[in-house]
């Protein structure tokens, strides 16, 4: 098996090429000492099976960013047979420096000049044969998005693999300094590339005059985000409901008969523990696919960089950048894909800070709980104001969290990024993205979600002779135990048990009320209104809004951060914040009303 590393600058279409070459067969590989995900896939090139590794985009082998460190680490520890260098043909003049740096490492290289179609349109001509001669490495022109030039490129890769020496790691101390590279780069370009002195005005320039307009740009951004948000959750929600229905049907038709021979508690364990866990996982599949279909459009079209430009003035003050703002907004639909989406940020501190902030977004699951409680306890004239205040609190706690933690998660990455021209993403590109992301989620989050759901089932059903979710179960006992802590914020034992259910998924809190109080529908609403006054209800809602992210969000945070310590912080911080906010509200409201 040969090993081929794919290396290039950001925005060169590297991932597009990787997906083109590998289809949906890619998976996350494990490499010593590397904390980011590297996608790998096995492909057949000519007569060779090769393992293709997609390394993160880098600007400079001697650079200081997290990604640049990852690539250095990889090259120093993992022997490779061939390095596939990918560069944007339009920007070959600027990207040649990385090509020359890579060549200096002494590894066999092959240069792919991507976006050959765009270079042609701009009147840029590249003499690939002459370039190959000067660089002493094979060169191929391709347009990865459309598969243009791919057969010829694959033939060259096959030939390069056949003639490659034994695989080797790189010695990075041999790198020449920048000025030598720049001189050489200029010499290579001069003989092989012709760029017209005056570039034709791009359509992007005309669009940007509106999209990045000082006054129009920001409202347009919010409008676009609102549209994407509505589309994702309008399309996603019915499919999600269908998925839940499907799992219910399978449960009554297949799983229930299959376990009917087992003792009662084992039945409960399988049906309400494991099966409920699996259907929780399944319910996320449609929303993640639809979310990433739209994110692929936002990202691949070039709009995400524009969003970063427009919102940076606000976000830089919070220690974040515009890309995290997009994810925080999406978190108001569902935290899970928003957490996964933070991968568009390349700096780890930024990503961690965003992951701490996103779970504070009032997601649609929490909204269901609030709508139910508000309708039960408040007259229609006051209801919208209560909800509005909850949204304000959500924003407020997010900003507070960012301000408190921004000193801990300082990004070393300078905010100097490329603004690519607008591009139309292809259907294939969009679809692959949704598919690959769901694969990630299923592989890495399923176990933790099922375990979480089973734990809650055990808490609320052990010992088996007690009434489920009643005061004699583990959950009930834990609830009583926590009373000294939760009574000062107006949350009694029964509500505490409901909160434990909410750990599975926030919307389950309503279902938990039904189980705990033993009633449903209007009777349950009336009961809730008699059980608590409005101060208690608001305190409970504030707590529900802020306290621990649901188990699926936690699983996503753990999978993305790869850090158990950070995951603990992401649970503990909102829990503490929730208590403080509820305490301040509850005690001051009681004092004022006394």
């Amino acid at each position: 098996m040969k090993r081929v590393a794919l290396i290039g600058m950001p925005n060169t279409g590297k991932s597009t090429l990787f997906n083109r070459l590998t289809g949906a067969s890619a998976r996350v590989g494990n490499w010593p000492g590397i904390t980011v995900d590297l996608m790998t896939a096995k492909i057949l090139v000519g007569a060779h099976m090769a393992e293709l590794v997609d390394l993160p985009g880098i600007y400079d082998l001697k650079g200081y960013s997290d990604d640049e460190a990852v690539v250095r680490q990889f090259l120093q520890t993992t022997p490779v047979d061939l390095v596939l260098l990918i560069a944007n043909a339009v920007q070959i003049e600027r990207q040649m420096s990385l090509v020359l740096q890579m060549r200096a490492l002494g590894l066999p290289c092959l240069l792919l000049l991507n976006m050959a179609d765009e270079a042609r349109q701009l009147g840029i001509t590249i003499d690939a044969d002459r370039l190959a001669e000067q660089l002493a490495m094979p060169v191929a022109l391709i347009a990865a998005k459309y598969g243009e030039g791919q057969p010829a490129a694959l033939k060259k890769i096959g030939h390069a693999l056949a003639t490659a020496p034994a695989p080797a790691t790189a010695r990075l101390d041999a790198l020449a300094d920048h000025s030598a590279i720049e001189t050489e780069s200029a010499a290579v370009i001069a003989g092989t590339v012709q760029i017209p002195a005056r570039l034709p005005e791009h359509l992007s320039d005309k669009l940007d005059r509106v999209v990045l307009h000082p006054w129009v740009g920001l409202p347009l951004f919010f409008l676009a985000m609102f549209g994407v948000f509505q589309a994702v959750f309008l399309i996603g929600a019915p499919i999600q409901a269908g998925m839940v229905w499907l799992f219910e049907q399978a449960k009554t038709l297949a799983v229930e008969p299959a376990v009917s021979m087992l003792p009662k508690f084992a039945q409960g364990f399988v049906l309400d523990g494991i099966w409920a866990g699996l259907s929780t996982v399944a319910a996320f599949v449609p929303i993640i696919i639809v979310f990433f279909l739209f994110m692929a459009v936002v990202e691949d079209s070039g709009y995400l960089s524009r969003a970063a430009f427009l919102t940076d003035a606000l976000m830089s003050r919070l220690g974040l950048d515009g890309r995290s703002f997009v994810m925080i907004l999406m978190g108001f639909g569902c935290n899970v894909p928003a957490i996964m989406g933070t991968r568009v940020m390349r700096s780890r501190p930024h990503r961690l800070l965003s992951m701490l902030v996103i779970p504070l977004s009032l997601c649609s699951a929490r909204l269901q709980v609030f709508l139910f409680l508000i309708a039960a306890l408040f007259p229609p004239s006051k209801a919208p104001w209560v909800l509005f205040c909850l949204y304000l609190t959500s924003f407020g706690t997010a900003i507070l969290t960012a301000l408190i933690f921004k000193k801990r998660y300082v990004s070393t990455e300078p905010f100097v990024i490329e603004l690519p021209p607008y591009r139309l993403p292809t259907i294939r590109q969009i679809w692959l993205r949704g598919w690959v992301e769901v694969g990630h989620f299923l592989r890495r989050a399923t176990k933790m979600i099922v375990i979480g759901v089973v734990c809650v089932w055990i808490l609320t059903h052990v010992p088996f002779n007690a009434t489920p979710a009643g005061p004699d179960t583990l959950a009930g006992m834990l609830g009583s135990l926590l009373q000294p802590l939760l009574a000062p914020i107006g949350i009694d034992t029964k509500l505490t048990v409901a909160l434990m259910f909410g750990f599975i998924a926030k919307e389950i809190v309503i279902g938990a009320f039904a189980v705990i109080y033993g009633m449903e529908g209007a009777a349950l609403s009336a009961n809730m209104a008699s059980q608590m006054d409005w101060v208690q209800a608001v305190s409970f809602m504030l707590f529900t809004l802020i306290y621990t992210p649901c188990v699926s969000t936690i699983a996503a945070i753990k999978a993305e951060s790869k850090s158990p310590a950070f995951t603990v912080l992401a649970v503990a911080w909102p829990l503490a914040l929730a208590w403080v906010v509820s305490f301040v509200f509850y005690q001051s409201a009681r004092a004022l009303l006394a």
Partner: protein
Amino acid sequence: MPGQPALVKAVHAAEHLAHRLAALGFRSGKPLQVQRRGSLSGPVQVRLGTTDVILRRTEAAHIEVELREVEPAPIGAAPDSSKA
């Protein structure tokens, strides 16, 4: 000034920023043009050859440019905040 052609004269930045700036095309002698500035002291968009780059004004202040046929001045920051 948005739209006015200029040349990169020098980059005065710590090594990690200098690396990134050089990789994106801020190398002495290269022509550039400021396309636009974000509102509320937002980032600036700079065109260098075939590459468009956005960067914060604090970072742009590290780049010394020479306006073509006009007095040298740093881009991004206000005219009085001379190069870092």
